[in-house]
């Protein structure tokens, strides 16, 4: 536990130095999204599933911000700590365990995601887009989503030698997920053949949970099923990361 907190502490100290660089993507961009699409586009359409487009899109953008942040923070920063900074090698020479390296960083991911979620929810509330007290659970859903995607992405980053693989990850997984996993339009509008792909994305499950919470309605699947799916990604991702880090750090 000490080791995990030490790794978390290092990530936080780094963030304190470099937070300005991520202000735009973490805090400003999501709000711009909601303003331009929610209000701009929403003004031209009657709404989705009986709610205004702004209200409908806010939980989607909430979850997709967490999704992108969690993936982004687990690509270059993780590979960099193996290849360039060699921060993991520095930790490896101390009592810190490999599991601490992963847990500490996942704790940091959750921290980042929760802060961004709370700020975004605050702004959304000003626009009257929050309709249910269940909203208080959404930062936790986002934190879980964060781990569900950050852990396997860390495993991937720990496996590759060359950062050009990240472009493929974004092109074939992250961007399609963001576009088609129910953030901007309901999955039901996808061709039936493509819908399972949206269901497979952890993002869709988090979007639906967040949407149910901010609108005060029931999600399409039982809450437990959505959560279980996200937990499975988090758990499996964690094990994959453990294996990848072990391979990379031992000989």
């Amino acid at each position, binding site marked *: 536990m000490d080791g995990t907190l030490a*790794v978390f502490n290092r990530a936080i100290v780094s963030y304190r130095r470099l937070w300005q660089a991520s202000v735009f993507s973490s805090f400003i961009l999501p709000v711009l999204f909601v303003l331009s699409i929610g209000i701009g586009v929403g003004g031209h359409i009657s709404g989705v599933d009986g709610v205004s487009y702004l209200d409908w899109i806010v939980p989607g953008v909430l979850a997709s911000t967490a999704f992108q942040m969690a993936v982004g923070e687990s690509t270059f920063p993780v590979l960099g700590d193996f290849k360039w900074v060699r921060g993991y090698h520095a930790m490896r020479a101390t*009592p810190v365990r490999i599991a601490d390296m992963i847990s500490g960083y996942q704790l940091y991911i959750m921290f980042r995601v929760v802060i961004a979620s709370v700020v975004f929810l605050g702004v959304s509330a000003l626009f009257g887009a929050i309709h249910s007290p269940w909203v208080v659970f959404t930062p936790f859903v986002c934190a879980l989503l964060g781990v569900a995607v950050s852990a396997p992405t860390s495993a991937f980053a720990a496996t590759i030698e060359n950062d050009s693989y990240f472009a493929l990850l974004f092109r074939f997984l992250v961007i399609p997920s963001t576009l088609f996993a129910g953030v901007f339009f309901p999955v039901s509008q996808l061709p039936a053949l493509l819908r399972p792909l949206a269901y497979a994305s952890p993002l869709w499950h988090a979007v639906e949970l967040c949407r149910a919470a901010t609108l005060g309605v029931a999600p399409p699947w039982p809450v437990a099923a959505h959560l279980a799916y996200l937990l499975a990604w988090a758990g499996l991702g964690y094990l994959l990361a453990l294996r990848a880090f072990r391979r990379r750090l031992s000989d």
Partner: protein
Amino acid sequence: MIHARGLVKRFGDFTAVDGIDLEVAPGEAFGFLGPNGAGKSSTMRMIGCVSTPTAGELRILGMDPVREGPAIRGRLGVCPQTDNLDPDLTVFENLTTYARYFGIPRAEGRRRAAELLEFVQLTEKSGSTVDPLSGGMKRRLSIARAMINEPDLVLLDEPTTGLDPQARHLLWERLFRLKQRGVTLVLTTHYMDEAEQLCDRLVVMDAGKIVAEGSPRHLIETYSTREVVELRFGDDAPATYVEKLAGIGERLDPLPDRLLLYSDDGDAAVNEVHRRGFTPSSVLVRRSTLEDVFLILTGRTLVD
């Protein structure tokens, strides 16, 4: 502190460390001297419990590195061959974040960080990020970082490689202070002057094997002569003189650019060269060094 018997490290079917025996006692400054690729870092990484021995016996601080890795690492200070400082953090933060890895409480970490920065003469850089520091400063910071847990054993892998002479001397002086405080130092180097300056005892390593062991003075006395004469013969290949000068001194070693003549009395040897009617274009009589020992033992120069 360190006990190894028949220690082996293989990478695939390549043997980097080929059955070495080691014994390092508390308070000693112990060195691995050898050229690039000799297996020094591979050995250091096994001692640092970050690499698993392929075969042989290894005990660090009386413990088993495979089963008790974290406990051992908690009592080691490691300064790796390639710096792995956090470039975006300040000098001070590099030390305090690292202190936490050892479970050192915040306040105590800050106290030790300030004290160590004083020791490595980086106090005025405390608030600067690491990126703009010179190589020597980064190295000193790495050493300070390695001391943060008040280690029983400090491992330094090529502490001064790539530094300018002034930075090297400053670093040596700091390491010498550590030695005086009774800290056990284990270091690797391919500089014979570094080994002579810092090590009480060293092993000469080549191609994964230990080829000699002892104090620098003992090694020189055992394997070399008291003095060495360096002869140059203008454009002539030094090798062509080996036969002509045979019998002078105890040994002749032709290098590409000069001929080394080993003799306990350099001046007498030079007189003999002249008496035989040869006039080298330059003559240098000097004391024997570990470099000569290495050449005699392996037939190769240390730094090429």
